[in-house]
């Protein structure tokens, strides 16, 4: 019935199917399939680097969570590590207290982070950019201080150890080579990513982009701006919490740095490096950053910091779209040349 009505409308109005196809969809592109085969291939090709690999996947998920609020909804945050840390400590503490079941720990971390994110979101959506920066920065610092002082719970500067995980799904033990951890992280990342990919291409996703592109126009078309911002902030916090819980479970340790400002700042850098607002940019940025850091920071930490700073300055001044933005421009140019 609906199909008939639409077909008639389409025939009457000569809609070009191509136009409708260009509206936000989630059909899998060939490049995307290739992209997701890469980490799978890495599992077989680089068996000695699986620990680093898990870290990249986890931080990638964390970066995706920031992209949701920053890249899509345009909400600036300097304290996203707070939710990462909440997830990490929740999962870690559960395990230390004797409950080492991975999946429930994961969900618990995400849930608690979501709860705190929900509460905080009301502060964040008030006021302009500067106020948001301050509030998010402040919440992050507060949490860090609290965790530091509550060393009897969190282990303080020494960190939380003794995080012992049970077998994943009752079948797979967390082995020393990090095989289980890697595939576990990949599965969680992929699962979350698929859901979020649908979300950013949904009407809700379109309204988020509307918030970013036209914050003054949104209320004028009847959009409940605050409700949307609260919603995406909560989702973002939940995903960050899941990423944090993953970290705790796969490394079996939680350090205070999961909450620190450097982690929030680095996350911003990764996202900008990869290109915000594209979901894949977050993953690319995280991967590039982590690999570069692993290689270069080992050589000389001061050099690393200097060049990262310089890179950031250069990106902001000249290459705002990051790596993905650059690739898009390239792709468009090649496309034009082909014609």
């Amino acid at each position, binding site marked *: 019935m609906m199909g008939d009505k639409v077909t008639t409308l389409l025939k009457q109005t000569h809609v070009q199917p191509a136009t409708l196809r260009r509206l936000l969809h989630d059909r899998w592109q060939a490049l995307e399939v290739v992209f997701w085969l890469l980490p799978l291939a890495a599992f077989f090709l680089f068996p000695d680097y699986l620990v680093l690999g898990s870290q990249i996947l986890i931080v990638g998920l964390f970066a995706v969570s920031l992209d949701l609020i920053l890249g899509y909804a345009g909400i600036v945050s300097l304290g996203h590590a707070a939710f990462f840390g909440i997830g990490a400590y929740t999962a870690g503490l559960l395990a230390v207290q004797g409950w080492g079941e991975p999946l429930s720990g994961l969900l618990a971390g995400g849930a608690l982070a979501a709860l705190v994110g929900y509460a905080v979101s009301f502060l964040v959506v008030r006021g302009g950019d500067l106020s948001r920066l301050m509030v998010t920065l402040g919440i992050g610092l507060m949490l860090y201080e609290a965790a530091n002082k509550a060393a009897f719970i969190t282990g303080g500067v020494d960190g939380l150890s003794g995080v012992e995980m049970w077998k994943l799904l009752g079948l797979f033990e967390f082995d020393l080579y990090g095989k289980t951890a890697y595939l576990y992280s990949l599965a969680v990342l992929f699962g979350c990513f698929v859901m979020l990919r649908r979300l950013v*291409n949904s*009407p809700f996703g379109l309204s988020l982009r509307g918030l*970013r592109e036209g914050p003054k126009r949104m209320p004028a078309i009847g959009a409940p701006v605050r409700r949307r911002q609260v919603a995406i902030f909560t989702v973002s916090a939940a995903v960050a919490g899941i990423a944090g819980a993953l970290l705790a479970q796969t490394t079996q340790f939680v350090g205070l740095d999961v909450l620190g400002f450097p982690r929030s700042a680095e996350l911003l850098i990764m996202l900008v490096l990869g290109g915000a607002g594209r979901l894949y940019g977050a993953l690319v940025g995280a991967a590039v950053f982590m690999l570069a850091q692993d290689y270069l920071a080992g050589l000389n930490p001061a050099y690393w910091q200097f060049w990262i700073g310089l890179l950031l300055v250069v990106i902001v001044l000249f290459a705002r779209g990051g790596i993905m933005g650059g690739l898009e421009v390239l792709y468009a140019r090649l496309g034009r040349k082909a014609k």
Partner: protein
Amino acid sequence: MTVALRTQGLSKRWGAFQANSDISLSFPVGARHALIGPNGAGKTTFINLLTGVYAPSAGEVFLGEERITDLPQHQRVKRGLTRTFQINTLFPGLTVLESVVLAILERKGMAGLWHKTVASQREESAEAWELLKTLHLERDADTLTRSLPYGKQRLVEIALALATRPKILLLDEPAAGIPAAESAELFSVIAGLPREVTILFIEHDMELVFRFAERITVLVGGRVLTEGTAAQIAVDPRVKEVYLGEAQHG
């Protein structure tokens, strides 16, 4: 004659500056009403007060019988009160089609859907396409709003407002910056709206005002100078003085 929109003693002050003073106006359903006045008379401020962008310093706004003075902007839109902006307030990074589809989805309360893609919302896309056709924007459907020339952006400005299916439409200088031929076209689209839609528009182009307005209110220095039919205002000596006097100084 049912009243669609009404204000009572509406005022707005910023510190020592009184932008709107004691404005009490009433617009019946189906009105074609123009709001004119020199620059800085407070016309846009009035629209901002009506739509909830500003909170009034004093006075009330009524939508039919309902007092909406404290209602936030988006809820007024949900009740049928829509406006366009004098300065294009669009979605630079969205395409024209995406922008209109978004407005339609918001209207239908579907913009909170997260588990279906936009592309699968065929009915809404078709409606958007229809709307673009009426404004001759169909060829720009996939163009990013920021890449459009000014005149076309102005049309998108109207399209977004029309997508909300307003009962009351407030247009803030809809033809600003568009050449005469296109602005006449634009106004004929607006004139083609259903008779029950109440339209209040701010305009400086007197030819357009007298062609489309049935009643005119003149705002000067934040106050209502006079109100009447188009014919009455055309011959009112005070109005002439306000405009001619301006021309002499300008």
